[in-house]
């Protein structure tokens, strides 16, 4: 992993972090309690450098750039559902050319190029575009706002939707417990691209997150961040419970926080002092409420076993650095 010349921003505490000069304005149409805006602020506030941001079609885009309004006080582009990665790769390439040709202000540090997409545009429809960008090695950061569902269009399943979750296209019913497939392991897939830096983050663990974002910004090459984004609307918890639900997600190890460097070195970056049962995480979200019926309880046991095995696997990988 090679590092870029970077004007690393010093972040002392949450107060100074949350009141930093904001390039993502508070006025937008995201649901009260939506974690997207927290994640976006944490990413953007992690640097003082110029930013070029792309967003895929989705909640973030439709809620922040409705003409004649914009929530973005930085260069921003949206093209379509599947191509925020390639939009930013195009901009990054243009910057490289204009800099070489002497058409950029050479006094300024290089801007950061960041693409955001939901799990629908990341795991599903835009996956090929992301894979292409990462294979070509653009100097960019891709951030997946992973709320495990097509939230913008009303809660359809994606390949990030976890098993047992009830969605509008894989609903729980008298003959179904909802989603039948396990969530795709996007972090491993992106690490397998040979990306210099891949990390999973959660906005409630802001120190861990900002450290990873800053490391990502300081890394040359394509960086992938999978950000858990608790969705009040589709996970069906109360809007004031976002951080609590997010805490349950990381403390139950359903969303373990770790990073993979150069596709090899895996570091677990957060170890809960008290691991919470998966049952508690599932129980906090009505999208899983049918799992608590007697005929479905076995699925909760399976969940717990799966999460335990995954945690075991991550620890072993960390230990042997492979």
């Amino acid at each position, binding site marked *: 992993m090679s590092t870029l010349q970077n004007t690393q921003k010093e972040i002392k505490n949450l107060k100074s972090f949350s009141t930093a000069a904001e390039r993502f304005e508070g006025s937008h149409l995201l649901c009260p309690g939506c974690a997207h805006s927290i994640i976006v602020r944490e990413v953007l506030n992690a640097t003082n450098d110029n930013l070029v941001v792309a967003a895929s079609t989705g909640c973030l885009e439709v809620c922040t750039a409705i003409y004649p309004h*914009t929530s973005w006080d930085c*260069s*921003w*582009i949206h093209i379509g559902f599947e191509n925020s990665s390639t*939009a*930013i790769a*195009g901009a990054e390439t243009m910057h490289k050319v*204009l800099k070489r040709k002497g058409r950029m202000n050479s006094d300024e540090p290089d*801007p950061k190029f960041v693409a955001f997409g939901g799990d629908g545009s990341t795991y599903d429809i835009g996956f*090929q575009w992301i894979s292409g960008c990462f294979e070509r090695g653009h100097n960019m950061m891709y951030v997946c706002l992973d709320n495990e569902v097509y939230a913008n269009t009303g809660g359809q399943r994606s390949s990030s939707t976890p098993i047992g979750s009830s969605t509008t296209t894989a609903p729980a019913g008298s003959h179904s417990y909802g989603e039948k497939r396990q969530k795709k392991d996007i972090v491993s897939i992106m690490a397998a691209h040979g990306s210099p830096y891949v990390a999973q983050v959660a906005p409630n663990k802001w120190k861990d997150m900002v450290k990873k974002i800053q490391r990502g910004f300081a890394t040359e090459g394509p960086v992938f961040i999978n950000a858990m984004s608790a969705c009040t609307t589709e996970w069906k918890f109360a809007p004031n419970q976002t951080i609590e639900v997010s805490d349950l997600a990381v403390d139950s190890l359903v969303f373990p926080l770790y990073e993979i460097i150069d596709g090899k070195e895996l570091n677990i970056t957060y170890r809960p002092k008290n691991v919470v049962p998966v049952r508690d995480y599932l129980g906090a979200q009505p999208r899983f409420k049918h799992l608590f019926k007697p005929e479905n309880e076995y699925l909760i046991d399976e969940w717990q076993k799966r999460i335990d095995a995954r945690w075991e696997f991550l620890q072993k990988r960390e230990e042997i650095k492979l």
Partner: protein
Amino acid sequence: MNSRKMELNKVEVWDGNMANSQAFRQADVDVVAAYPITPSTATVENYAMFHANGYIDGEVIMTESEHAAMSGCIGAGAAGGRVATATSSQGLALMIETLYQASGMRIPVVLCLVNRALAAPLNVNGDHSDLYLTRDAGWVSIDAFSPQQAYDMTLMSFRISEHLDVRLPVISNQDGFMTSHTAQNVHPLDDDTASKFVGEYKQVNALLNFEKPVTHGVQTEQDWHFEHKAKQHAALMGAKKVVKEIFAEFKELTGREYKVVESYGMEDAEVAIVCLGSTYETAIVAIDEIKKEEGINVGVVAPRLFRPFPLEEVAAELQTVKAIACMDRSAPGGTVGTLYNEISGALINTPARPLVTNLIYGLGGRDMTVAGLKDIFRQLDKDAKAGKISGNIQKLVGVRGPELSFYNVQGL
């Protein structure tokens, strides 16, 4: 330009793809994002070779699909520099979503579209189904009939696209294989003259201008969408004037004259065909022969500028003929062909009321020969003399099997 200059001969032997590649090189394109597809592949291959040999200062992004190629062009174009790509057929079909996005976002892009049939059945040869697929995409679309014209049109496309009154993407069309793979004499400009003609790229709302952050690709619903599309349409309609100005400037520079509607033999023509692409060149030969051999006065009209459609100029060209065959090189999909519709539409409010037929021809690269065109002219001549269309309005010509023809409004 820091890159090496290329010493060109006064006359080069180039095919249509090389003509595109050389125009890209001389235009000092900042970013080419592309994906290879027959028959436009060589446009990108030649350019990659120029890059490998130090003739290019810009970057080449070889993407994983045509959709990504155009997505990259839009991102790079929005960032604030000159962008271009090339494609054909299925590749164009895959990037169609982004064509609408490029024009709606007012990003200058030059797309060399080497026209090829659309599957199924899979076919690599030239027809205009991909060109027609771009009809309503909001791009300026110009048509080259030969490698020389491909060079000229592609070079001029940058000027048109980046013009401050236009700021719309431009398609430079040519026929797959017939033009793209047929080497002919081409008179190029030298590098300095070409570069000077194209000029420096002017940034408008560039993402890389951090003094003035901009939001590209917003959402508009029923409150503003119509106004955006109306402005976009007005800009596209206004592009005709700019195209004419740039054609005039190019004539001053090269002596080569282009018009938004090209015609041959129309001074004394009694009947005419209307077509696109290399068929125009074949028609010139057929017209000269049939005039000389059979004394029939016939002509050909071809919209050089396909979008914005030069309705007034087409109508003016066709005021004196008695019968017209509109030749569409694309399966019409359950109606009359595009040229038939647009030519008839151009004439309906004018004094001229010629007979207008619709010939579907040349699908999937089926050859349209001089002899074939003479047959068409003879039939037009008969119809004109009889004062009525013989048989149905739409006919498929040059296809095996029993005659297929459709639509008849005589006797209404």
